[in-house]
């Protein structure tokens, strides 16, 4: 993510214009062995060829509501796609015409629709997991996506 997505000029501008960015390491004590990963280990991948491992991109509203989250390395196109999904969903949920009590239902519906449209099984599964839980950032534990093969905990 750092060498590719976060180094892309367009992404940097997008993140700066639309987001406040937080880097939070939940397990700084976890040390990778030399060579980073066991040779025999092959993580499950996302459609862009990226792995579901020890990072998750989380998009949240200013009130702390998780709008979207996707585990694994996202290239520029993948990150942009998920950003656009999160941005559109946030606009929908926080439309003044939408009642606060209706937000959870709209959130679940949007994620289930995205799960059906996803071309990648892991991505679809991530959307399904999110659809089941309308939550705040402090409720999103690092093990949330373990079913997708997130082995680093």
């Amino acid at each position, binding site marked *: *993510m*750092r*060498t*590719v997505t*976060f*180094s*892309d*000029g367009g992404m*940097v501008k997008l*993140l*700066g214009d*639309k*987001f*406040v*960015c*937080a*880097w*939070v*390491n*939940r*397990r*700084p004590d*976890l*040390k*990778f062995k030399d*060579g*980073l*990963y066991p*040779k025999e*280990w*092959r*993580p499950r*991948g996302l459609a862009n*060829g*990226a*792995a579901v*491992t*020890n*990072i*998750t*991109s*989380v*998009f*949240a509203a*200013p*009130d*702390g509501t998780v*709008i979207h*989250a996707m585990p694994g*390395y996202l290239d520029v196109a993948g990150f942009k796609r998920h*950003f656009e999904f*999160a*941005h559109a969903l*946030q606009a929908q949920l926080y439309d003044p015409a939408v009642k606060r009590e209706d937000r959870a239902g709209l959130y679940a519906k949007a994620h289930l629709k995205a799960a059906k449209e996803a071309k990648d099984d892991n991505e679809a599964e991530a959307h399904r997991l999110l659809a089941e839980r309308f939550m705040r*950032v*402090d409720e*999103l534990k*690092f093990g949330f996506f373990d079913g997708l093969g997130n082995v*680093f*905990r």
Partner: protein
Amino acid sequence: MTVNKITWISMVLVSLALVSAARQENHPCNCHPREVGASGSRNDWDGYRKGGITWHYSIDEALKLAKDEKKLVFWYHVAGDLDKEGC
């Protein structure tokens, strides 16, 4: 420089290149070695460092700023020694 010294240095350089290649091959994120930093080195974060993203190291702090600036929060949620090496 003697022939022995040249041979020895060549062997060291070849070994380092082989170790580097093996490490890249083992890396699972697939941004290496297909898509690496501008200089082609996996540990070169120049593009990232010059990127200009302002990171905050607390979610609460980011949420407070997001409210003030009417922005969303992007939380890069990581585990492990990613400050040292990673993607």
